[in-house]
């Protein structure tokens, strides 16, 4: 019937692109156009999901030329989940942004946001290394432009630093791509996976590509650019950055390490795990020391990203699923947190944690959203974060590498410390403040629904985990 033979794969890329063009062409009705596009994309993602669940992983040759010459799109469980989470968070942020930006800023926000959504969808679907380079550039530049939208001196400084980091990462990626292409005459991931062998060029390419992508994913020593960028951007943009943009380069790294680089590299894998644990501890400690709420949440992102890299040394399929589950629930919880922080800042005029109590008591729904999202970040049941942490802990203990389990526990204790540092402020006897800015109920409900989704993710864990098995992305795993 009609639903099945439409290549929803293609629609996922064309729809946001067309949406972006319309938003650019008709600035007066940009909010309406943006919302329609967001809804249509969500519908097409669900259609794609039903298609993939039915027919398994799909490979689509763009232009009909096939792999070595043309570009292939590929969707399996891993990319489908990333698309679903992007659509869910994207829809929530679109609804939030309608109320957040004034007319003048909306004219700039929506086209950039739609192009960013195109970049995300194209990135999660692409199976071609050079195509991934172009999508990474599209993603990086749109993210930088969105950060700069906030306009202040530190927002522009953060955007500038983010731009240099993004360009540097892309250049490392491109140099590695050159080495890979000239060794095996192809840039298609599937063909590369068959032809790969341990030549010096491949080792160099692996090192360069990993370095470039780690820079873009802001893993611990290379995280310096993330907190200012995520904290000074407008609230919906920082939600986008923390939930989706940072995860895109992690997705590419995961895809590469699962399929293209499964060479015996125990040392390198342990090193990645070490960096991950450094991120978890350093991010947690720094988050605890922050006085501004959005900086605290940004450093929490640095910490949570560390968790994802702890799955590399574990390398069983359960560990990968745990990391992916953590990634998804972090996307939902963190975007809800940033939107809640946006509400608090909009209402109270500031986001200093110490003076948060007067504001928090006037926005109970926003604080409830922050608390629920905090539960998922801490990894306490019944949340998605707990399921992810459980799977990682299980993998760590089964493979006998108990030290990663210790890091996971320390990380969640640190997370509990800085989350409760903020929540504690809801229960003080603060007197009623004067009215700063009003926050529309819709914005509070969006933050609450996202946080609720992160909690519900903890209860219906079997469905997403089954979805992850389509196309068995994790079975190849990193050879021990």
């Amino acid at each position: 019937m009609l639903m099945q033979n439409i290549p929803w794969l293609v629609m996922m890329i064309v729809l946001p692109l067309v949406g972006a063009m319309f938003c650019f062409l008709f600035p007066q009705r940009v909010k309406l156009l943006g919302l329609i596009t967001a809804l249509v994309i969500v519908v097409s993602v669900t259609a794609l999901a039903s298609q993939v669940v039915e027919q398994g992983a799909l490979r689509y040759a763009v232009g009909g030329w096939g792999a070595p010459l043309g570009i292939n799109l590929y969707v399996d469980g891993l990319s489908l989940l990333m698309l679903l989470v992007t659509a869910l968070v994207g829809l929530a942020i679109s609804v939030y942004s309608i109320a957040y930006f004034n007319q003048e800023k909306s004219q700039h926000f929506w086209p950039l946001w739609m192009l960013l959504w195109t970049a995300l969808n194209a990135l999660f679907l692409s199976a071609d290394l050079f195509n991934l380079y172009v999508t990474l550039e599209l993603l990086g530049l749109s993210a930088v432009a969105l950060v700069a939208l906030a306009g202040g001196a530190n927002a522009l400084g953060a955007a500038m630093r983010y731009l240099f980091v993004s360009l540097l990462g892309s250049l490392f990626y491109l140099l590695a791509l050159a080495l890979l292409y000239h060794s095996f005459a192809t840039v298609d991931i599937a063909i590369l996976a068959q032809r790969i062998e341990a030549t010096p060029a491949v080792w160099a390419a692996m090192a360069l590509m990993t370095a470039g992508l780690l820079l873009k994913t802001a893993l611990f020593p290379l995280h310096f650019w993330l907190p200012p960028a995520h904290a000074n951007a407008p609230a919906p943009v920082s939600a986008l950055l923390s939930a989706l943009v940072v995860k895109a380069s992690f997705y590419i790294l995961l895809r590469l390490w699962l399929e293209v680089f499964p060479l015996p590299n125990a040392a390198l894998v342990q090193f990645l795990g070490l960096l991950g644990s450094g991120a978890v501890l350093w991010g947690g400690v720094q988050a605890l020391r922050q006085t501004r709420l959005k900086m605290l949440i940004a450093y929490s992102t640095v910490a949570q990203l560390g968790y994802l890299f702890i799955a590399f040394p574990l390398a069983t399929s359960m560990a990968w699923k745990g990391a992916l589950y953590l990634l998804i629930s972090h996307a939902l919880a963190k975007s809800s947190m940033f939107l809640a922080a946006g509400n608090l800042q909009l209402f109270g005029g500031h986001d200093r944690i110490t003076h948060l109590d007067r504001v928090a008591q006037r926005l109970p729904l926003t604080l409830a959203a922050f608390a629920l999202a905090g539960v998922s970040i801490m990894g306490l049941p019944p949340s998605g974060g707990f399921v992810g942490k459980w799977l990682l802990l299980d993998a760590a203990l089964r493979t006998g590498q108990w030290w990663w389990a210790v890091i996971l526990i320390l990380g969640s204790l640190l997370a509990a410390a800085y989350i409760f540092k903020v929540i504690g402020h809801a229960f003080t006897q603060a007197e009623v403040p004067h009215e700063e800015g009003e926050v529309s109920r819709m914005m509070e409900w969006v933050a609450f629904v996202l946080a609720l989704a992160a909690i519900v993710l903890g209860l219906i864990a079997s469905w997403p985990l089954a979805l992850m098995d389509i196309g068995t992305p994790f079975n190849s795993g990193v050879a021990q």
Partner: protein
Amino acid sequence: MNWDAMLPLFILASSLVPGLIIFTLPEEAVRTRVTLNMTGALIKVALVGFVIWGVLNGHHYETRLPFLPGLDLVLRADALSILFITLSTVLWLVTTIYAIGYLENSPHRSRFFGFFSLCVTATIGVALAGNLITFVLFYELLTLAAYPLIVHRGTEESHRAGRTYLIYTITGGALLLVGTVWLYGLAGSLEFTHRGFISELVESHRSALIIIFTLLIAGLGVKAALVPFHGWLPQAMVAPAPVSALLHAVAVVKAGAFGIVRVVYDVYGIEFAAGLGVTLPLAILAAVTIIYGSLRALMQDDLKRRLAFSTVSQISYIILGVAIVGPMATIGGLVHLVHQGVMKITLFFCAGNLAETLGIHKISEMDGVGRRMPWTMAAFTIAAFGMIGAPPLAGFVSKWYLGLGALEAGQDWVIFVLIGSSLLNAAYFLPVLHSAWFKKPMGNWPAERSFGRMETALTLLVPPVITACLVLLLGLLASAPFSALQWAQFITTLEYAP
């Protein structure tokens, strides 16, 4: 969709749904809030009654929700869980009445009753959990739901108490989680089965099982206020009286003790635990806590802090009963689980009444309070004598069985611990009673509020009287068919090999 599968879920929902609705209620909607609370409590009591009747004639109630591949969320009403849910449900009904009276026109009541219902839901979940992962899930939910109640007043002192509470319970929860995951890794399943499910693992993973046991007990010990982890309990007394009554005397603390009972009986199985040699150190730790708790209680002048330290020592009776390998000691431990709850809640109700009506917080201010508030002090006296272990009351029954169990297991040093602690109990309760009844009231009370002819508000007076009568009934009718003792004996027959 058979009803037997859904019943445990309904029991949970009967306090969860009203709680969530109450969250959305504005402050002024007092009537709706009271009706919601009361209907929720009454429905839950009815459902639990139905479950008891059902289990007695062979129904099997179990809800199984898919959670992780190979792991389900299981809510099962077996004999042990029924003991705990009856206790929690009855006491929740009584405490709701008390809380409504206690919090008359104070701020943030919707928030209070919302989290109050969440706490009870978590406690029922802990009781009904059919495997260790469901237990951990509700155990952590209890930690989260109790925090807002502790910091409810918003004073700097309550924040300090909240912070200590969090540090202890979140770390405990983390230890419990690691132990559970490790056990799942070794055993492959976490279902609670009578006489434990790790029998075939004992030889191959001996040392791992001992470490896991210590992790689990440490995690649960935080809530069960075992000695090194009890620090948060006395500080948490800064919370309003209903919170300290239900949560810190019944729900939260009992969840820890109940967890230890589950771990020793339904995870390890008493014989294997003894075989691993972990029960003796647990018994010693419990004994140390009993003595230490009583000694610290002796030195407290603040009434609620004395009661808190008395809770610390009383809970360890249960753990002592569990740790002594023998059916009689198990009966003593299990029955004390119920008796201690009823007695302690009466004491906290009375302490709340004194604070609310006369503004008395210190024991030194309690001279001659018996004349001013005879009913409250009568209930306080019954409960105090019960705690000491005076014969016709509930406390005596459990101490009696504990003593028998100790003799049967040949651990006669436990007898001295029991006698010593009873003496200490007397040492810190009798002076309170003496000064309340036999001394003349000195001058006027710190902050007296008059309630016309009654000594205090009806909703504040009735609950302690009811629970005091319960203490009496549980003591006198111990051998009656439906008493807690009979139920404890029924559970013990399941746990020990025929």
